[in-house]
């Protein structure tokens, strides 16, 4: 007889990376140390908020479609009109989401388990993306903070260019921005995660892309 209270659930990332073992159980920092890396950040908490125009929630979120911002340790990503993804550590997201006004037509769905998330970082990150996605990754068209939805290696993804903050805090704010390499969060349906991770790694081989 199994004692239901004795079990200890462990979050399993959908991505098995050769360098990270059971990746996703913790967020590593080796991505910051290599020139071009792909890190599994699936374990970040993601909450989808949908709110109709002119609701208090919309004003609280204060991010337009196609943009993102860092606030109180979470990134608010304007994924689609009237739709935002709040990304961050569980406690930060929970705290933030609890403050969202529910007046009007507002809904929340926990996307932590629905969306896998990987971070592609490095000076050649956009060149890797050019091999798997048809969008223009130049800083004019996709600046830091930009949010897009696109097909990446034939998988529908939401991508946030997020150069300057990591894991809930700004990255070395004293560093000159020109030396901070571009960094992209790529979120996809969980079921595609391992395929996509492998496809991006394969595409990035010529630039020395490594799993973090």
């Amino acid at each position, binding site marked *: 007889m199994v004692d239901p209270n004795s079990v200890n659930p462990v979050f399993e990332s959908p991505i098995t990376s050769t360098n990270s073992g059971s990746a996703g159980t913790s967020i590593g920092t080796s991505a910051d140390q290599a020139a071009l890396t792909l890190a599994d950040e699936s374990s970040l908490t993601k909450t989808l908020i949908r709110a109709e125009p002119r609701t208090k929630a919309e004003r609280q979120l204060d991010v337009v479609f196609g943009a993102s911002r860092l606030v109180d340790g979470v990134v608010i990503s304007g994924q689609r009109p009237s739709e935002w993804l709040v990304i961050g550590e569980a406690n930060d997201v929970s705290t933030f989401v609890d403050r969202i006004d529910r007046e009007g037509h507002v809904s929340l*769905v926990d996307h932590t388990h629905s969306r896998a998330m990987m971070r592609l970082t490095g000076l050649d990150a956009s060149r890797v993306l050019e091999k798997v996605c048809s969008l223009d990754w130049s800083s004019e068209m996709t600046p830091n903070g930009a949010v897009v939805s696109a097909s990446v290696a034939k998988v529908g993804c939401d991508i946030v260019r997020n150069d300057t903050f990591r894991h809930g805090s700004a990255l070395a704010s004293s560093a000159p921005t020109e030396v901070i390499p571009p960094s992209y969060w790529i979120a996809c349906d969980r079921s595609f995660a391992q395929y996509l991770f492998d496809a991006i790694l394969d595409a990035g081989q010529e630039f020395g892309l490594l799993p973090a």
Partner: protein
Amino acid sequence: MSGEFKPSRLGPQSGEVIDRSATIRFTWDSKVMTGFAGDTIASALMANGVRIVSRSMKYHRPRGYMTADYWDPNGFVQVGDDPNVRSGHRLLEPGMTIDPQNVWPSLDHDVKAANGFVGRFLTAGFYYKTFIRPQRLWPAFEKVLSTFAPGGTVDLDTPHRLHDKRYAHPDVVVAGGGPAGMAAAIAAAEAGARVMLVEHEHHLGGHLLWGSDEDRALAAKMRDAADVAGVEILTDSTVTGRYEDNWVSIVQRNHPLAVERLIKARATSLVVAPGLIERPYVFAGNDKPGVMLSGAVRRMINMYAVKPGSRAVVLTANADGDAAVADLRDVGVEVARVVDARAGENVASANGPGRTVESVTLGDGTSIDCDLLVTAVGWTAPTSLLNMAADRPVYDATAARFFPGGPIDTVLSTGGLTGDGTVEQLVEHGRATGRLAAERSAVAKHRIQAHTARAAPVSGDEPAWPHDLRAALGRDPHPELFRSTTHGIVDFSEDVSSKDLVGAAAEGFDSVELLKRFTTATMGPSQGKLETVNTVAVLAEARGETIEEVGTTVWRPPYAPITLGALAGRIFEPVRVSSIQPWHEANGAVDILAGAWKRPEHYGDPAAEVMNTRTNVGIIDVTPLGKLDLQGPDVPKLLSQLYTNKWMQLPVGSVRYGIMCAEDGVVLDDGVTARLGDEHYLMTTTSSGAATIWEWAENWLQTEHPEWQVHVTPVTTGLCSINIAGPNSRTLLGRLCPDIDLDPDAFPYMHVRTGTVAGVDDCIAWRIGFTGELSYEIHVPSGYGLHVWNALLDAGADLGIKPFGLEAQRIMRLEKGHFIVGQDTDGLTKAPSTGLAPLIKLDKDDFAGKAELGWALDEFASAESKAPRLVAIQPTDPTVVPHEASQIVRAGTNEILGRITSSRMSPTLGRSICLGQVAIDAAAPGTMLTIVLADGTRTTAEVMARHAHFDPEGERLRG
């Protein structure tokens, strides 16, 4: 001339691109030879004395190098297992095995050359006319004629090589790396544009490379400047097409990792600077080895240090021909005669009883011994990329070539394509073009950026559109020289002669487009680069018209032929897996692909999996089941709109089954929806219908009822779904759910509860089933799916728990008589045919398909109804399992009454069972049907009273 000349390697030349310190061994036609790094196959072969490199397509005439570059129609060879390699372009590599193509028994003695003796019968359209009748012999004709097909051989065992793909968004793409193209690229980059410079050949510089030392110095300087300016330089790459909005396709052939890479570039401006392509001259014997174009001779001498002949006649109509004379003399080739076309002189034929040129007959009848005839009679302007931007070239008789028709805003041209001039003039025109392209790109980018939500903000108003203030290049007069007084080959790739064209014109093919298709002129691998203008000129001459009146054929993509590998590029084949997949793979699951999902079909014995589930308890991973989270006060309205039954009063904690129909009443999907809270629902769809139903729901919300407050969010893979089925399922689940009361009264059939499963919070448990057993479907956050799966297996060890796969599930659902949308229904199956007419509630407000279903129900009730019925069927012989899709016919006839839609051997019942669609007059219970089996024999079967073959009263699932 006596004795056949053999080309040879010259001493070092100041402009050579070969590295004499790097000797390369290779074989040609089984003979070992050597060349140098930097050699093309053509230059290496010529340096080894090879003059005949191929046989022509139709007549198998001996052919030698004519242009000695990418476009050479005579230079196709087999390199290892790689057929149709352009030897004028492909660089020599160590160990290459190079062979001639489509010759037998050898290049020197090819028996198919006998075609030449009957050549006068092989006129244009010969095949069309000769082999049209009798039609019954077409397969035989095909078999015989295919042996004459040109080209190399494909080894089907050749491993796939990597082809790659990338996207690019340069501000300016410059197609062509000659002086004007380089200048344009540098100027555009210096003006701040992101520039991609694409050169077809291996080196930037264009004709400067085989020009003077000063020319080469300029080319080198410009290459450096392009590097400094940050131009992305792609050599050995071709812009193969220009499409809407400057979508430009580029094939890169020299990528270090991939054999080819397709680049899909969205260029804000495109600069077309391909230079000019030297045109062959049409005269008798113009395809004999030893007849070369002036550019080919100059490339061979200056870039590859190859002596192309010992005694030459040069037909020249321009400065390039004159330069060829000088180059030949510089390397010790005797120039026996310069035939100056500008002075009215002409060449009538190239002669020789042997296979190569031995003499030339001039227009005045003079015969001159020689082993090399060089022609310089003008150029073709490769306006292809401009044509693809809707430009129609215009012929200028004074300059004897076509020019671009008119300006296009973001497609600019420069260089020889647009006019003549000194190198300095070409460079200046290129620079002006590059600046203009950059300025126009900046305006276009400003506009795009201002209208793109994610883009960085733009400053200021949109700049004014820059006008084209470039000074046009001049046009040098040039004699019109297309065909001599004799007939010769026009299309060297297809063996089409001027005589063929004249004959076709006489047959009435007076349009150049029709002439092209009838004769196949311009349709070979050269794609018109060498032969289009001559084709037009011969047709014009034959019809007594001008070239302007005849016009040209339209150049469509690709500019140069593309391999299928390049088009395929990097292959992406997404595969979806559930969070439990690692366990399936580690425990002997045999997978199938269902859509993009990889799923366990079984774990070795599906029949045993069925029996265990019916006896003990089984679990199946059903994560692919579509799941939609629905929130908002108007969810019941949406559900009522989508499903055919009623949804306004579904209590919290309840689950309801429904079918969805399209507007035409055809079954679209089915599934269950649970009410989790006052304004919170969870809908399940079929696995394959998940995306369709999400889109269907959004379509209703966004276009028909935007006033409804409903948020639909797909959560298919956010929730890992496990079905627990079998008599022991309640006991098993009870061991892992401390906060869900599983008592049948507290948690009855078709209800839903939320709670903790195996320590995982926020799980959803439905009491439903597809197998006919007492069963629960649990949905857990996917990150914990594998944990819950393992916990179930651990907790159920003493209950006989076993996993089961899709096949066992299919068997059990068929035993229970559940239909599968898309298998037991098709694109014509309306809801009443499935036996679910009671679920169609015409007394509710509008719903999808209501009108059509009303008519369908009336029609269904009619005695004359033609609508099929879905019925359960059992073969008389219980060991016979008809294949799915087997036809059901009326006994003793071939009249089709329907088909078997599902069939299996039932391990529970020990007999074969089926579902099938049959006509109304064969659908009554007890009706005996005749089924045509796969081997053509027939068997009988009985229509059953109910869909369920097993437990029709549902006692087990309600237990």
